[in-house]
Each structure stands twice: as C-alpha cells, then as structure tokens.
C-alpha cells in the first residue's frame, strides 16, 4: 500500500548506462554486397547473430543518399537489429529518424562533446594496466558480477576469476589462477586466439562465438591447467 503511494509519481527513472554495442562499420553502401558478406560471417560465428543490436556506422562512406531502409532489412534478415546510425550527412540523419532509429554524430565530434562533461572515473582498487598493443593486465580477484574486458587485445588476469564473473578479450585470455567464471576470447571473431588458465572450473569457455558450458567439459580436465583453442570451428580443451 505504502509502496504504491510512494511510487505513484515515478513511473520510470532515467539512468545513464554504458552498454557494450557492436558497431557495423560500412565500407560499402551496396545492400547486396553486404548481404553476401553477412552470410559468410554467420557461418563463422552463428552465436553472434542472435538479434544482436548494432549501430550502423556510415562514417567511412561518402554517399549522401543511402538506401538505409534496404540496409536495415538486410541486417534484420540476418538477425542483426539496427538500433542507430552513426555519422553521415543530414539526409542520413533524417532518414534514420524516419525509420525510428537513433542517430549519433561521427566519432570525432562525439569525442569533443563528451570531453566537456566532467568525467566520473570509477576507482579500481585492483591494479589494472593497459599494455601496448591494446592488451590489458588485471591483478586481483575478478568477483561475481564484475566484467573485465580487453576489447582490443589480450587479457591477462593475475588472480582468480570467480563464479558469476565474466572476462572478455578480442585476443587471447590468460588467467594465472583459478578460472571459475565465464571467459570469452576472440569476441570480434578472431579464431586464432586461445584461453589459458591454471585451474579450470569455468562456467563457460568461448572462442569467437564457439562455446562450451561447464557441463560439456570433460570432468577429467576440471581443476587442471589447460588451454583452449579452436580448430575447424571446433573448440578443444587440452591439459597443459
């Protein structure tokens, strides 16, 4: 009763959020060309195409008139959900709005607008070092509910990754400690990467969208030092 009364005036609240978002950088405006390449991508990593929201970036295109509606149709047909468009001329902005999509200014302009807002930097007591080449070294325990990612390179965790935690990397993942959470390597589709850990108890292991759940892992490998690699779209786990 009192709950209803207190909540009466707040049907919703606005909250800021930083969500991971896939950007589809277009270097061609031809829907047929895009369709053909999407088909081959899907066969590589089917797990990725599950109504994944994408931002269509047309920054690198120099086309004032874009067949935006057809582009969106092609994406939807392949289980990608366009949610917004980034960059492009005014005409592109107008047609994005007409299609019910959001519009973001191009990257450079955005960087400038973001700078004027005072940045809130969350303190990280665990030591976290960016290494050359886009990789990342994380020292400390990755706890349940935490997510640590290296979106441009390898991720090295010196410590434990606990159940309910998630670590992601564009490259390989190395855990010098027990791996009990979820580890996803090659998140941008790189297949030549691996997952390495001192003690395997992972909830999920994935390379480039090919995954194994804890249930699928040979119990004989649990608790051991292992490596995970991909060969012909098959995920292999091997003791080290």
């Amino acid at each position, binding site marked *: 009763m*009192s*709950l209803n009364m*207190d909540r009466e005036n707040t049907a919703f609240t606005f909250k800021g959020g930083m969500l991971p978002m896939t950007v589809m950088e277009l270097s061609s405006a031809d829907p047929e060309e895009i369709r053909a390449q999407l088909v081959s991508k899907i066969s590589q990593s089917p797990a990725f195409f599950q109504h994944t929201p994408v931002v269509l970036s047309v920054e690198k295109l120099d086309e004032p008139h874009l067949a935006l509606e057809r582009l969106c149709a092609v994406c939807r047909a392949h289980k990608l959900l366009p949610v917004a468009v980034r960059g492009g001329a005014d005409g592109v902005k107008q047609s994005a709005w007409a299609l019910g999509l959001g519009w973001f200014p191009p990257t450079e302009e955005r960087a400038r607008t973001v700078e004027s807002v005072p940045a809130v930097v*969350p*303190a*990280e*007591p*665990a030591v976290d070092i960016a290494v050359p080449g886009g990789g990342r070294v994380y020292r400390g*325990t990755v*706890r*349940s*509910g*935490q997510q640590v990612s290296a979106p441009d390179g390898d991720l090295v965790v010196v*410590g*434990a990754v*606990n*159940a*309910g935690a998630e670590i992601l990397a564009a490259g390989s993942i190395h855990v010098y400690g027990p791996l*009990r959470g979820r580890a996803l390597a090659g998140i941008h589709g790189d297949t030549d990467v691996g997952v390495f850990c001192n003690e395997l108890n992972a909830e999920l292991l994935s390379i480039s969208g090919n995954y194994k759940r804890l249930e699928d892992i040979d119990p004989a490998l649990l608790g051991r030092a292992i490596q995970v690699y991909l060969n012909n779209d098959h995920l292999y786990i091997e003791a080290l």
Partner: protein
Amino acid sequence: MAKIIVVTSGKGGVGKTTSAAAIATGLALRGNKTIVIDFDVGLRNLDLIMGCERRVVYDLVNVIQGEATLNQATIRDKRTENLYILPASQTRDKDALTPEGVERILSELKEEFDFIICDSPAGIERGAQLAMYYADEAIVVTNPEVSSVRDSDRILGLLSSKTRRAEQGNDPVREHLLITRYNPERVDHGDMLNLDDITEILSIKLIGLIPESEAVLRASNQGVPVTHDNSSDAGQAYADTVSRLLGEEVTLRFHQAQKKGFLSRIFGGRR
C-alpha cells in the same frame, strides 16, 4: 573519531543482524562506546534481537527527514553500558533513505562514538549500498554454502567500487570474512563447504568463525545478543571475533569436529 563498520552479505538469512548485534555488544563490553544502526528499513529486526522493541519511538527515517533528533531516536541498551541502538522504520521502504541524510547522521555520530556498526539489509539495492557507502571496514557474513559464497563475492566487488572510499580513491574498505553457521561434522561429511574452500574463493582475511549453535536461536528469540552467553560456543566465538577486530591475535576455535565419546556415540547426544 568513530570507525564505521558495515555488516553485510548479499544473501539474506545468513546472520547479519545476529552478528551485528553480537559484535556491537562485544565491542561495548570491552569499553568502546558503540552504536548499531539498522539499515533494513521496512523489515526491521535489530530491535528484536537487541530486545528493545518495546522502547522504539523514533527511527532512522524520522531522523533523516528531520522529524526527530538523533538523541530522541537512539536507544540506550539496558544490559550493556556504552551500547546504543538506532532502529529502522518498519512502515517505510528503503527509498526513504537518502545519501545526504545518512552522511549527516554518520558524521554526527562519529564525533561521539568509537564504533558505528551498520547492519545492512540483504540484497545489493539502495538500502545495502547506502549501508556500505560510508564504511571504513566491512564484515562480510557468509554461510558455508555455495550461494552464500557467491553473493558474498558479489558484495566484495561492490565494496571495492561502490563505496565512498573507492569513489574518492582513498584507502580501500578493509574487508573481513565472518563465517557463520559452521558445522564441522557436516563439513566432514561433505554437506557444507569447508573453511579453506571459502577463504580460497573469497580471498579475504578471516575474522571469525561462528559454529552452528542452538544458543544463537535462543538468544535471538530472547532478545539477548549471544555475546552475553559466554558459556556457549557461539558466544565465545563472537567474543574472539571482537578481539580480532580490535587487533588482537586469537587462535581459531570451533572449526574442527569434536571427537565424540563412546557414550555419546551410542546415545547420539545432542550438542
């Protein structure tokens, strides 16, 4: 200046309020002026455990909203000198707590007390986050079971990111692990996680281990914190915990199964 210690866990029913009451009592018995604050607005329990439920007039929310002063709302414990209780409101919900209000109360109390114990509600929402936000130290209460350990892990993550110390880049909140409801026999049978597994997963320092004990339930129902029952194993274990909190070295007890004698094995004597 007082030390602010939050007693938290993520999971409900693991013994946060019991532990907050027992530790606050232990600190007061050792001569420290201590106040224990119930942050569980809407589901207040601390007053029952402390046995002062009949003396509640004003509560935390009244003070935050300026309807009462701190002096009017704090209740002096009848059994223990130096011990005070600030009860939660039962008729409101956790949205009534504001960060500014909590900060004002804590800074006022800091002048007067040696220890401020914040009894956090379960969960990771507003009430729990406000209870931990201003903390200097945290006691993470964990039962020897997987779900409790995972929730404690989650809380430890929040302690290192969603507290004032973390946000301002000060020294991190000092984290202590308190294992409650530990039953060495059941651990030996494999029904419960053992001490080493828990400390290995959570990788923080153990400050106490409270055995599963009938004394705890009895104490709760009588409204007398179990620390007063110094003949009981749980009461002694909480006293040890308080000593460690005060920086003393105390050997760990109650973590190994007692060898049962011949007679009790035959008659299955109850502990």
